[in-house]
């Protein structure tokens, strides 16, 4: 039985033997010199291709992509240096390894050959040992260059595949973002006598802040704004899950009431902290349209803001835990009264937790000042102006957090909403 070490040697020899012999292109118009050199190289184990002039050599280079090209300097038509230049000018061939063969080795001739693209020189008078040494050295260089080229080609291919995958992912994200945006209410008149406009700018393609304004039962408008902690796809998916819970038909079944406190209490039970500590903050309002009584409750959310023309502005928020922090927590409903021409804003904390270049946050006071100062503008313009002021404070267009600002304005005496059953 053969020793394992002997097996390894035999396997290595077999691998070596299986490698194709390096290809050397020999270009020389002198038949005797060329034939003699070719025979010498073949005896050394190389596959030799012969060409009798520069043009034929260039054509053979394109056809065979030899590992090494040995060029005679003096040839009719294209001489050796001219073939070198043609090779270097060809994107496909330019990394070929070229050795110029000369009868002389004058320094000025060597300098010219190198400047015109040769990698090395070989004297026609070189000994057998020198020819072997130079050919072997050149083939080593050539092998390294080819390895680099293969690596570069592999990298190019990987980059193309990655780019294609990235494009595919971006398309999917865009599609998901469009779906999320389609869940948001249409600006306009969510109920008679009530105008609504909003601005929404997620920090990534997909946002974890969502809001809704829609009818909840007869004469009642449901309003909410939610903030899923974190950003991106995971936060958006969780936000959509909570949004589904807050659908009118689901609330009727799962909560049995449209009372904001009851809704948040149920949501608190159904949406515990995730294993990664992700959670929601939520503000829910219920506007009774005939009386304009606004009932609301919050779970850790910065809340809503009422700007009235007849009385002091009011923040509709409370100190409360976010959803899922404490399964036994209870959330109470509070009530306020909206008046004609009042503006109610639902907003995410991303709109006022905007840092300036020095790190100072814009803050709720500045936000409130801006909303109040823009009261003479239309609701849409007021929201636009507020977003612009926040961006100016930030000194850029990309907010670090999702930003949502929803405005509602009481335009005239509301006509009770009656829906056909």
């Amino acid at each position: 039985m053969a020793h394992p070490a002997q097996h390894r040697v035999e396997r290595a020899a077999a691998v070596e033997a299986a490698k194709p012999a390096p290809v050397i292109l020999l270009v020389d118009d002198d038949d005797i010199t060329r034939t003699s050199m070719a025979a010498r190289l073949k005896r050394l184990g190389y596959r030799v291709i012969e060409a009798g002039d520069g043009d034929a050599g260039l054509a053979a280079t394109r056809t065979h992509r030899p590992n090494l090209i040995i060029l005679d300097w003096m040839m009719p038509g294209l001489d050796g240096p001219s073939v070198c230049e043609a090779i270097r000018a060809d994107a496909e061939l330019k990394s070929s390894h070229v050795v110029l063969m000369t009868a002389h080795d004058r320094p000025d001739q060597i300098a010219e050959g190198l400047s015109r693209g040769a990698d090395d020189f070989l004297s026609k008078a070189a000994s057998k040992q020198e020819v072997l040494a130079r050919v072997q050295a050149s083939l080593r260089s050539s092998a390294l260059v080819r390895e680099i080229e293969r690596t570069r080609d592999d990298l190019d291919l990987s980059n193309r595949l990655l780019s294609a995958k990235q494009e595919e992912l971006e398309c999917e994200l865009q599609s998901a973002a469009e779906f999320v945006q389609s869940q948001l209410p249409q600006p306009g008149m969510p109920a008679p006598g009530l105008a609504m406009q909003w601005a929404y700018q997620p920090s990534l393609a997909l946002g974890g802040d969502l809001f809704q304004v829609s009818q909840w039962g007869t004469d009642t408008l449901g309003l909410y704004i939610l903030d899923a902690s974190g950003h991106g796809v995971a936060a958006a998916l969780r936000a959509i899950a909570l949004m589904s819970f807050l659908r009118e038909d689901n609330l009727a079944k799962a909560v049995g009431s449209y009372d904001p406190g009851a809704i948040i209490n149920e949501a608190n039970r159904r949406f515990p902290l995730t294993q990664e500590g992700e959670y929601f903050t939520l503000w829910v309002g219920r506007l009774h349209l005939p009386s304009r009584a606004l009932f609301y409750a919050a779970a850790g959310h910065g809340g809503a803001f009422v700007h009235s023309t007849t009385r002091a502005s009011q923040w509709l928020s409370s100190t409360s835990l976010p959803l899922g922090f404490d399964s036994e927590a209870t959330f109470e409903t509070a009530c306020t009264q909206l008046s004609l021409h009042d503006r109610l804003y639902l907003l995410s904390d991303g709109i006022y937790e905007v840092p300036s270049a020095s790190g100072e946050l814009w803050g709720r006071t500045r936000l409130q000042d801006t909303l109040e100062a823009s009261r003479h503008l239309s609701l849409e313009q007021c929201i636009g102006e507020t977003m612009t002021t926040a961006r100016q404070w930030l000194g850029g267009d990309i907010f670090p957090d999702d930003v949502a600002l929803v405005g509602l304005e009481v335009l005239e005496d509301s006509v009770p909403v009656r829906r056909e059953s």
Partner: protein
Amino acid sequence: MRITERRIGHSIILDLVGELTYANRTAFKGAIERSKQAGCRHLILNMEGVRFLDSSALGMLALLSQSLKVTQGVVSLLNPQSYVREIISLANLHRMLPVYNTEQDALAGYSLPAAG
């Protein structure tokens, strides 16, 4: 974020320095896990050196409070500074995690239930 651990009696104090955010969650969770595995029943997070706390960190603190509660453990917060104290207060987190101003108060604020 730099985290240093000190063991005093049955309590472990983690001195936190830097920003407690989503980006630092791995280091924070690692330190918490080591404290839990050491059998800690009272974990004191020294917040004096914490400059910033994001929403993700609030969730981690709430999760920590819940998980220690299961094993009858307690997490306390020590001396959070202005902005961080405000965030904790706004999120009502002090209802879940007692906040102390001094280390002595934090250490005295918890006594192990009698064994057996």
